[in-house]
């Protein structure tokens, strides 16, 4: 009961005309910035901090929160229309969203993204409100051992992302982890794989790799095809039939819950949530083999998950003062600038802010839906740009995104190099998603592994003896098992008959699509 009163009080704060305006500005600005490939929630919030400075703290964080989920939605728009996810959290959306756009169903894909984002965000807020205190006290008991297990679990998503060639998927993931290790080792200050180039001491920025292997590689593939193939038809109707809504409802609900809990755990966040939910739905769905070819469920699941996780990441931020992701870290910085220190005492000392933000998230979700559904045809106009104009433009946006981040021409060279690597990977059937996953999780995994071993005195048994970590690792192992069995079987079959008819059906799938189906078996 007390909670409902608190929430109503929160609405009375969030619905003042002034704060309503700030939500609107935040969501709109976030969406527009997020659509530009290369500019994600992090850059969007960072860019808006100067504007928030000098505002009243509650209004400021309400606006910045609006920027956050607006940018996530904007990111999915460019994932679907351009296959250029500027944010790691929307990479999984492009796996099915872009194929849908190529088949002339961009309108439906965007509508699904908007609706499932809305559902994910709303469920996330309910979760935030209901279990923030309890769950946060559970997650705070997580040590490096548990985080390591969590990262391992995240990495196993590679298997379901790896397409029909497990070896190529794993190579891609290993190279991703290798890329993550470049730079000064954070624990011992020993430089690794920098080739004495000072530009590499800080490591390789995620954005460079993502823009290179996704956006630039996409442009090169387009050029190699001579702009032919995958002909785009305009955006058809946005309207979803009741049957389509019924199909995406269960994945959306499941992924929202999964996404929220993943988001609550620090370090996991929207990216891991979207990958986890994507691979979960792929396994659950009866038509799981059409994931990656434009299955609406493959759009709904990661979209619901990343929005729920974005909200979920506010739990540790607001109740513990611990940022759960890079984006919430920037938010934390913004709060400190505004003179607010979030933490366990915030709920008691500054309830206006906590409940105001919670209520504004409801409002923000509604604004996002009301604002974005009508504007989808405007966003989709991007598709009508002739290829010859689009190709150089995407290159320029990539260059601006990378240069605006680091002001380094060296990084632009790196961008070109990753573009070329990504292109060669696409041409030869190496999936790019595991590389990104390895890059994001690799560094975190190593850090936590070493911290855990430092605490345990070098005893590797600690990962199996801690109950939570052992449980997470067991789940990771179980999720690997079926794919390994299939891979071993496939290898044997290939040895026996190199030109067996199965080989031909295996290959019939996609010439150079992002992720192919694993099982070539007919549906049913």
């Amino acid at each position, binding site marked *: 009961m007390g909670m409902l009163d608190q929430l109503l009080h929160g609405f009375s704060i969030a619905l003042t005309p002034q704060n309503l305006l700030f939500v609107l500005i935040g969501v709109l600005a976030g969406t527009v910035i997020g659509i530009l490939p290369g500019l994600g929630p992090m850059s969007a919030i960072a860019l808006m901090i100067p504007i928030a400075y000098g505002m009243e703290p509650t209004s400021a964080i309400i606006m910045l929160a609006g920027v956050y989920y607006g940018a996530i939605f904007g990111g999915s728009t460019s994932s679907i229309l351009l296959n250029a996810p500027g944010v790691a959290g929307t990479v999984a959306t492009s796996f099915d969203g872009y194929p849908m756009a190529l088949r002339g169903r961009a309108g439906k894909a965007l509508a699904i993204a908007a609706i499932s984002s809305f559902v994910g965000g709303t469920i996330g807020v309910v979760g935030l409100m209901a279990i923030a205190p309890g769950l946060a006290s559970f997650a705070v008991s997580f040590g490096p051992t548990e985080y390591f297990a969590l990262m391992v679990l995240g990495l196993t998503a590679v298997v379901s992302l790896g397409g029909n*060639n497990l*070896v*190529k998927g*794993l*190579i891609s993931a*290993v*190279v991703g*982890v*290798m890329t993550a*290790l470049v730079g000064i080792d954070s*624990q*011992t200050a*020993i430089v*690794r*794989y920098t080739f004495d180039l000072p530009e590499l001491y800080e490591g390789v920025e995620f954005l460079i790799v993502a823009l290179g292997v996704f956006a630039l590689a996409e442009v*090169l593939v*387009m*050029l*190699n*095809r*001579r*702009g*032919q*193939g995958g*002909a*785009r038809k305009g955006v058809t109707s946005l309207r979803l039939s009741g049957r389509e809504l019924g199909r995406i409802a269960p994945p959306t609900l499941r992924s929202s819950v999964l996404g929220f809990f993943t988001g609550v755990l620090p370090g996991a966040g929207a990216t891991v949530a979207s990958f986890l939910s994507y691979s979960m739905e792929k396994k659950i769905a009866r038509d799981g083999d059409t994931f990656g070819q434009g299955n609406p469920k493959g759009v709904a699941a990661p979209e619901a998950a990343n929005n729920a996780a974005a909200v979920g990441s506010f739990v540790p931020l607001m109740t513990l003062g611990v940022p759960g992701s890079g984006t919430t870290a920037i938010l934390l910085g913004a709060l400190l600038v505004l003179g607010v220190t979030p933490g366990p005492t915030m709920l008691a000392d500054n309830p206006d802010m906590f409940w105001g933000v919670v209520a504004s998230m409801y409002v923000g979700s509604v604004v996002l839906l009301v604002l974005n559904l009508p504007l989808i045809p405007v966003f989709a106009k991007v598709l009508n740009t*002739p*290829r*010859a*104009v689009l*190709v*150089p*433009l995407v*290159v*320029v946006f990539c*260059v*601006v995104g990378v240069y*605006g981040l680091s002001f380094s*021409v060296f990084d*632009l060279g790196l961008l*070109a190099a990753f573009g070329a690597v990504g292109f060669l990977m696409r*041409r*030869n*059937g190496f999936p790019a998603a595991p590389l990104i996953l390895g890059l994001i999780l690799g560094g975190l995994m*190593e850090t936590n*592994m*070493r911290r855990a*071993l*430092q605490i345990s*005195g*070098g005893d590797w048994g600690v990962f199996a003896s801690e109950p939570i970590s052992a449980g997470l690792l067991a789940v990771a192992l179980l999720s690997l098992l079926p794919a390994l069995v299939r891979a071993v079987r496939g290898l044997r079959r*290939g040895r026996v008959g*190199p*030109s067996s008819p199965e*080989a*031909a059906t*295996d*290959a*019939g*799938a996609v010439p150079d699509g992002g992720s192919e189906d694993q099982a070539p078996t007919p549906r049913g």
Partner: protein
Amino acid sequence: MSDRTTTPNEAAAETVRSRPRRPWRPRAGVTPEQAFRFSPRTMGTAVGLFAIGYLVLAFQMPDYTAVSVPVQPSTLPRWLGVVLLVLAVLLFFQRAPVDEAAAADSTSTDGTSTDADPAQDAARLGRLADPRLEIGLFVGALVAYVALFEPLGFVLATALYLGSMTWYLGYRRHLVTATVALSLPFALYAAMTWGLGVVLPSGPLPF
């Protein structure tokens, strides 16, 4: 060399856009489907060489001796190198027909589908017969753009890049090209530098 000797005159021609386009036929014997595809042998060897190089560097990495640590900075790289080497061997022995079948499949659909759907912007990109040269040229242009980024400044370098690439890739409404190439870099520069405080290189221009 080129089957498009009429290129310079096309701008003047009124009927350019309504002229039916022939499906593109490669002269150099390399179709877009074949370009940049390698056999598992080649790829396995390349990945394997990379893994060996990575391992050599991993074993040259100094150990951290100031304080005893359970995991050295070089531990994970060594394991990663070994795993990559094993994967490279597995890749080396994979069967090749997979790619060929996929290529053949897409070739057969390509020939029919592209002709059936002549959208107004389905004009093929670029001018060279060999897609490999085309890609090389494109990457070269990108490198040139990056190299000129700071000396020429953002506005000039971007205008030059946008204008020349759009023209080269075959967009024929030159007025639109010129407008975009001149206005967009300036708009981006203004938005980034004055709007968001992200300073892009100005080059010789006075602002």
